[in-house]
């Protein structure tokens, strides 16, 4: 049975208009993406796909995505002035529109973000009501909602790695809600995305980072906090 709605789904959420999928969801995609990058981007290329391609200005999704890249929350009144604030902060960004990417969800945004030589590519979908799905990260299938605490690992494709990581998390008393694994080829690099009900201790993260076969660790606690 689906989870019951809250009183505050009926009287709420408190949000910036005009629509939860075009503002709140878009802000959240950007907030998730800068956490994947590890900070505010120096350079951003933002592509709006399909339904978003034509309507992103009218619905203010351009302001919403820039606001999210500056780490504003979904109910921050400054979202309306995000483009002016970004100009003052000399943010470097470009918008693109692609109208017919049939492989993507109707409301899809691709972000290519750069900071201090690091570059990440994140594809996010705004699914309505502020709910999002981060569909891809650097070409790997990611499929996480960023509602919970998320752990992303890039690692060598070695035997037993999933069981090993799951074991470490269970020792931190952490319940795994969802997990997805994808790889670019046999024995190539694999990407592990784990959503957890509770957060991880620093020492757990440090241990995972110290493993020889783990190449990259990204930890994203609840993005709305």
């Amino acid at each position: 049975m689906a989870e019951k709605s809250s009183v505050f789904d009926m009287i709420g959420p408190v949000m910036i208009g005009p629509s939860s999928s075009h503002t709140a969801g878009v802000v959240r995609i950007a907030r998730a993406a800068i956490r994947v990058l590890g900070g505010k981007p120096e350079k951003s290329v933002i592509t709006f796909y399909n339904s978003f391609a034509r309507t992103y200005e009218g619905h203010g999704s351009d302001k919403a995505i820039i606001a999210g890249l500056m780490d504003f929350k979904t109910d921050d009144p400054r979202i309306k002035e995000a483009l002016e604030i970004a100009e003052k902060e000399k943010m470097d960004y470009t918008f693109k529109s692609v109208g017919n990417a049939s492989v993507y969800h109707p409301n899809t945004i691709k972000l290519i973000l750069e900071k201090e030589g690091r570059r990440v590519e994140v594809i996010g979908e705004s699914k309505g009501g502020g709910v999002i799905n981060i569909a891809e990260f650097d070409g790997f299938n990611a499929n996480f909602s960023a509602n919970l605490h998320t752990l992303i690992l890039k690692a060598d494709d070695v035997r037993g790695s999933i069981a090993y990581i799951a074991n470490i998390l269970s020792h931190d008393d952490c319940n795994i809600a969802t997990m997805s694994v994808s790889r670019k080829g046999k024995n190539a690099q694999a990407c592990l995305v784990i959503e957890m009900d509770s957060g991880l201790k620093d020492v757990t993260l440090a241990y995972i980072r110290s493993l020889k076969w783990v190449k990259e660790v990204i930890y994203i606690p609840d993005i709305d906090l």
Partner: protein
Amino acid sequence: MAFLFNDFASWKKYCAEHDLKLHETVLDYEQEQKGRIPDEIWAGLQKAYGVMKEAVETGLNEDMSSRSGMINNGAKKVFQHQQVVLSKEFQNLISRALAAKEVNSCMGRIVAAPTAGASGILPGVLYTLQEIHGLDDQKILEGLLIGAGIALIIEQKASLAGAVGGCQAETGSAAAMASGAIVYCLGGDVDQIFNAVAITIQCMLGLVCDPVAGLVEVPCVVRNASAAAIANSSAQMALANLSGVIPVDECVDAMGEVGQSMEARYKETALGGLATTPTGQKISKSVLIQDIEMLSDEDQE
């Protein structure tokens, strides 16, 4: 186990059996389902009501013009207009519902109640009700809880989303919530509250979602004002013990049935109704981004 808001008849029965008031059952539900303590729930409601009132003030005092140009300080114009149709109170009601909804269209902060597209109705209605009758905030917050209970049932039996059930699901549900809250705040009993909901749904039934250029502006903004008026007319009838004849649960079922049979072009797709009128299309062309890349079939691989 708390009541799960499946339908109105069992809500009434549950209240009678457990000697609870309508709003107390909603409070119990939220505690049990979401693990929130009452203090937290009341604080959340107070915050929401604060944001609603703030949206009304913002809409009446700050510049409210949207990027498309379709929204241009309408609430202020109505609020300040010299010529009064019924009474100053009615003029206030209409302008306040417009004000909060204009704030939503112009990227201001609002409470989605139940959705962003219907975010002007409860603010306009409750602000005006509190002012006219000198009600304290606690009463209004109890009214909001009853509104939430009404919406929980509509969500289960029909829908609250324009993309699923058309405009009746959004502004219709908000008006039903507001109408129930009015009757409660003015001392109505359970039957009168549910009759207000039934009558409101009957008045809002069948409204399609046909937004010009796909924006939450035309006709959404003016429909928030008319829905606020209907919430009040229904409450006036229900308080005089008029029933909707068709029981409230059957009215909600009818809303679900009408929503299901509605064609997709009337469900937020901007492919029918006002959106496809010659003027609607002209506006759409000027608002929507025309310079977009189209991928070739090979790029789609």
